[in-house]
């Protein structure tokens, strides 16, 4: 998997901000293919708990992953209100189930702070940085790290 692009301090980067497991996250817009409504998926045998199943994206079979569960924030019970963010990771297409998508953020590179170590071993490593948004905080997800450990999503 390719190395993530280094963001320059004076560079403006666009993110899509979203909510998963009650926390705010954002994903770089260039990694997102499309955003869809939740529709029922076909569950897969022998999958990890965060893999909900596969869905038909115009003829491609793509796995849908519960982002909240993947990040250790508890499984989402999907309803029609939930949203699937279809992301492209090198040669794979994967859908991420999230609670909601909020807005597009434009952030200057220097405003992205690195996430401090809080002593957690969980998939918190896939948080590439933190940004302040209004009076809250959004966590920048590094999809490569998020999926690197489980290159094969099959357990």
């Amino acid at each position: 998997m390719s190395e993530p692009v280094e963001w320059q301090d004076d560079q403006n980067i666009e993110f899509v901000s979203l909510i998963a497991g009650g926390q705010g996250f954002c994903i770089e817009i260039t990694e997102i293919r499309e955003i869809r409504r939740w529709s029922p998926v076909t569950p897969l045998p022998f999958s990890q708990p965060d893999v909900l199943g596969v869905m038909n994206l115009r003829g491609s079979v793509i796995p849908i992953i519960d982002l909240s569960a993947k990040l250790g924030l508890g499984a989402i019970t999907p309803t029609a209100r939930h949203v699937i963010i279809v992301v492209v990771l090198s040669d794979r297409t994967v859908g991420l189930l999230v609670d909601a998508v909020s807005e597009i953020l434009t952030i200057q590179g220097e405003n992205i702070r690195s996430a401090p170590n809080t002593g957690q071993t969980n998939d918190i490593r896939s948080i590439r940085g933190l940004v302040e948004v209004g009076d809250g905080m959004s966590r920048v997800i590094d999809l490569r790290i998020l999926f690197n450990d489980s290159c094969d999503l099959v357990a």
Partner: protein
Amino acid sequence: MSMDSLKATFFAECEDLLDALSEGLAAMSDGTADPETVNAIFRAVHSIKGSGGAFGLEDLVSFAHIYENVLDQIRAETLDVTPAVMKTVLRASDVLAALVEEAHAETGQQPEAMAAVKAELTALSSVGGASSESGLEDAFSFEALPFEAIELSDLGDLGDAGELTGDARYQITFKPERALYENSHDPVILFMALADLGDVVVECDTDALPVLADIDPAESYLSWTVTVSGDVSREEIGAVFEFVEGLCTLEIALEETETLPPVGDAVEPDGAVDAPITAAGPSEPAGKARQSAPQSKRPTLRVDPDRVDRLINTVGELIINQAVISQKVVASGIAQNSDLMADLDDYGFLARDIQEGVMAIRAQPVKPLFQRMARIAREAGDATGKDVNFVMEGEMTEIDKSLVERLTDPMTHLVRNAVDHGLETGDERRAAGKSSQGQLCLSAEHRSGHVMITVRDDGRGLNREKILAKAIERGLVAKDAKLSEAEIDNLLFAPGFSTAETVTNLSGRGVGMDVVLTEIQSMGGRIAISSEPGKGSEFSISLPLTLAVLDGMVVTVAGQTLVLPLSCIIETIRPRTGDIRPLGPNGHVLSIRGAFVPVVSLGAILGLDNSCVDPESSVLVHIQSGGANPVAVSVDDISDQRQVVMKSLEANYGAIPGVSAATILGDGKIALIVDPDAVSKMAIEADETPITFELEI
């Protein structure tokens, strides 16, 4: 164009040429050859030699050269095509094909048979009386001829090898045009071909050459005057320049034998002067060789298979989309006879037309595969000293290209086995009252949405006693097992089974038949054996028309829709009370026709459903796949039997145990396609480690 892409084109062309070659040779051995056939064969070898030279493939070129000589004599009818000659010519085509393969693989090895066949060819070409052949053969060895200029002085020496004492003498004025070089022709190769015909003197006219600064490297400035003498005909010379017709200015003039006129000034012996062949197209002269005007071949298109696959995929989507729209329109309550319904029907027909058309792009006749098998059969016959008559039936039957490729290995194995084990030696055959020549027949036909390919021999048939004894010895079956004939035959497919008393080069490593079975099944096909002692055996392979589509049975398990490949299903059973007997705390067996088959819940194997369903209330599907033992899987319901388009799961996700792929159903939902082989194996493992294993992994 890079060298690599040139090479790729070269090998693709070689493939076509080799096909043409084997086709022509097949016609020759049937005795249905006409002069054009012989010409086509010659041209094929000649073209391979020509382009092979450009890539510096020395072995290939030197072999093709000798081969070409022999073919040339057959063409000129100075060499009679006796069965022995035919055999050598056939073997030579095998070697040539092997050389091309090796060149492609860049192994740097020489095919085993090459030296022997080369010697045979050389012997033949001297029998045929190639006048000045041998002398010139050594004068220049066919070395690598890369795309570089060659010292002209070397060419000047060509003529020194022979004296100008032939029966006829031709003066050839040859002025290539720029296009000749652009098409990768090389005058040197033409002159060498001329030198094969007789003694040559080559003179180069460099007058047109501009000063260095003005030279356009791609332009043609040189012209040559070549004097050829010997026992040659105008047609033979014309044939040399056949491929450059239209790319050069060419004049071929007959000279008096004795006179040596100055260059470029041909003496015209009273009217007998042949008009200059200004290579403008398929013109004139009569005579056999001239019937060789290449048959107008329909242009073909080379397309990257990936593009076709994408198209097939998209068309599959179109079909599904059409089905979804139909369902929705019907559900919306529109009257059946409304215009919209009629249009929708048209849409459906068009979509199917497109699908058929797209599938046809991938379809290819099995002929090249069969021809390759003919070669395998000949090699096997040679190696075992058996005389094999190879017959093809239905070779124009079309199947998916990818199937053609994947069939090569299993078919090779079957053909070798048939020759090695099936057919008897000549003596044995005579003793059994059969003709000493063994028959090996390959046939292909379409049968209700499938392709049947059979390999049939008229040999000794399967020795069932021996097979059974061997299987018992290997511990594959119990000592006191009572097996039906079909069951004994199927032991051949058991892993690690080989009946050959000595391990021969050809077959008998015991890794064969189970691999054949696995490969055929991985293509969604089946294989069956029928054999009669003393009369022969028949292996029939039944394959789906394409790999992208699978015949499946749609079943419901724990609320999920799954697809079972039809190729693995023996039967479906709704068990009656008493058909299913408990075995151990959780196990069940199905009693069917005197045999006991384990019953397993498909839902439990795939971890979809842990509740213990009463197997008597469910539907059982009796499956058998690969070398695995038959299993009856219980499902909740069988809903449909249909063709499904296979979609890879691995591209975006990964491999799932027990699942081979996914498909999209008419309602747009995804259904998983069950891998029967894996499920049978998992069923047995699940027996050993019950229940806990599902969700953990």
